[in-house]
């Protein structure tokens, strides 16, 4: 929980929403900025609920519930959304599960951004045989059905939150590396890049000072678009018993556990499903809106 500060993922989104509001096209600007503001707002709400609510308000712990209180309906005293078959508070599990899902997604995309981004930029910058070899290796990863690879890795490392993150980076690194490589290739021939090269600037310096700031916004947008996919994949791993191990909650394993009593208590499945869907939809809409803005420029 302490590994990712709760306000970290929130800040960039609020900033983009603010930047859109003061866009020079004033007449219909506020209507246009809605496509960013609404998903960003919903995300802020979900993130706030998952990371702040358990701290501010006192809600029951997500695990170690009392079996005597099992299967309480929603709006029961002390359990707003009821309890599951072992007596755990569902709301608490949803919020803590959301923490796990979002932490994993942020970590996976963060690692993908750093490793994949630099790998792609490096490959494009040096070019030649090294570039070809790196790209072939990425091809191997992409030809591999991503979920199958993640399953195999998660199984061989053993199910845990950290191992889930590493398994999923095999999905995000090659994808981001490709985008980064393409963006760097476009930059490479720009006059200021040629000038930097010809004036004998060291490679790492060119990469850090010239390429990174230019490709970063594009990569971050792409990473945001990928957040939804990662959350879905994490859910899939947990759903198949290879992600976050129970009793600790994640949206995926809540759906998996709920599935066993789906005919009696469909809400046990539908509630984490709804949270998962709203979060992924918001990430997708936000990424899409930012991408549209990018391509319009």
């Amino acid at each position, binding site marked *: 929980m302490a590994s990712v500060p709760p306000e970290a993922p929130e800040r960039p989104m609020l900033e983009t929403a603010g930047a859109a509001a003061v866009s020079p096209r004033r007449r219909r600007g506020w209507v246009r900025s809605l496509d960013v503001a609404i998903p960003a707002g919903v995300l802020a709400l979900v993130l706030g609920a998952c990371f702040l609510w358990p701290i501010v308000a006192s809600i029951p712990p997500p695990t170690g519930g009392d079996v005597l209180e099992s299967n309480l309906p929603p709006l029961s005293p002390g359990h707003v959304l009821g309890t599951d078959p072992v007596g755990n508070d569902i709301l608490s599990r949803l919020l803590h599960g959301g923490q796990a899902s979002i932490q994993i997604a942020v970590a996976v995309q963060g690692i993908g951004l750093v490793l994949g981004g630099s790998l792609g930029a490096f490959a494009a910058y040096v070019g030649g045989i090294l570039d070809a070899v790196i790209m072939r290796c990425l*091809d191997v990863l992409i030809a591999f059905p*991503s*979920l*199958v690879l993640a399953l195999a890795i998660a199984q*061989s490392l053993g199910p845990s939150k950290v191992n889930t993150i590493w398994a999923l980076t095999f999905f995000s690194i090659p994808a981001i590396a490709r985008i980064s490589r393409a963006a760097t290739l476009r930059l490479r021939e720009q006059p200021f890049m040629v000038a930097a090269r010809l004036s004998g600037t060291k490679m790492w310096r060119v990469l850090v000072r010239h390429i990174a700031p230019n490709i970063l916004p594009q990569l971050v947008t792409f990473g945001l678009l990928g957040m939804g996919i990662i959350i879905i994949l994490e*859910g899939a791993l947990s759903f198949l018993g290879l992600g976050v191990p129970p009793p600790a909650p994640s949206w995926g394993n809540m759906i998996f556990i709920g599935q066993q009593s789906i005919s009696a208590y469909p809400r046990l499945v539908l509630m984490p*499903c709804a949270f998962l869907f709203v979060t*992924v939809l918001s990430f997708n809409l936000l990424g899409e809106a930012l991408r549209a803005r990018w391509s319009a420029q």
Partner: protein
Amino acid sequence: MSTSTPALGADRRVSHGLARALRSPSLRLIGRRLAAAIPVLWGVTLLTFLVLNIMPGSAAQQLLGADATPEQVRQLEAELNLDQPAWVRYWEWLQGVVTGDLGNSIASGQPVTTIIGQRLPVSVELVLCAIIVSLAFTVPLALMAARRPNGIVDRLSMVLSMTGLSIANYVFALVLVVVFAVIFPVLPAIGFVPLSDGLLGNLRSLILPAIAIGFPLFCFYTRFLRGDLVEQMRGEDYVVTAKAKGVGPWRVLIRHAFRNSLFGLLTIVGLNLGTLIGATVIIEQIFALPGIGQELLQAINNRDAVVVQAIVLLLAVVVVVANLITDLLYAVLDPRIRYGQRSA
């Protein structure tokens, strides 16, 4: 010189024809693709092997249970040929693959080819149903959406496709189960009826899983096709030519824009097959379908490296071959590639 024998002439004609065939752009394309695919496939097997061999805990331990003595484990490992160094086993496995022998399952002892032969048809039927159903809905919806961009159908299609792309397939599958098997019990929630037990039962058992896989697919295809059609209707000169002929809007859309979008759609269908395979693993699990995905998950949990490796290789081959077939179909269907670029 001028009086060559007929046989020689015929021979020369044949070799000339062959040379021309070898020079044909589509064939060369396929050759290039095949050459590029082999190292990728090899890389996939190597990666699988590496991943499977860093697994802690051995298959023998898994088979015998936790209370087995170290002697028993060692004995079984020797029986299963697991006591040799990893690279020796990889080399032997690779030799087997080249000769068509994928080995025997560690868990059940059955030949892997037999297992795949039983499981694959189920998954193939599932995926084909999903693709066909989703395309059947995609084409009319995308055409209607592109007919009036930003119109009511278009907006609906955008909302629908964004929803479909944001909904995880297992979430959607479970919602389907809740609605059609729990609330309105009209369709079976789990189980598979083989084709040999009747077509109707077979299709009934595939409806929900095929929709679960097909709906996100449909959204993905629709998004692509609608975008491509709108772009063509806005930007392509031959669309203007068709309009200038006095051709009606639907006809322009279908005969001119859709005809050209079809190639792109085909590529998308082919390239997306890899993602679909991941979806079958989950969906087969939810609906208890005895397909290749279920087998794979089982094998991963049993640490049955032989089966996992064979299935992963198979899936990688499917992805690579699907890409190849996409290229090939493209070459057959697109006249620009079929005849090569003769003029400037």
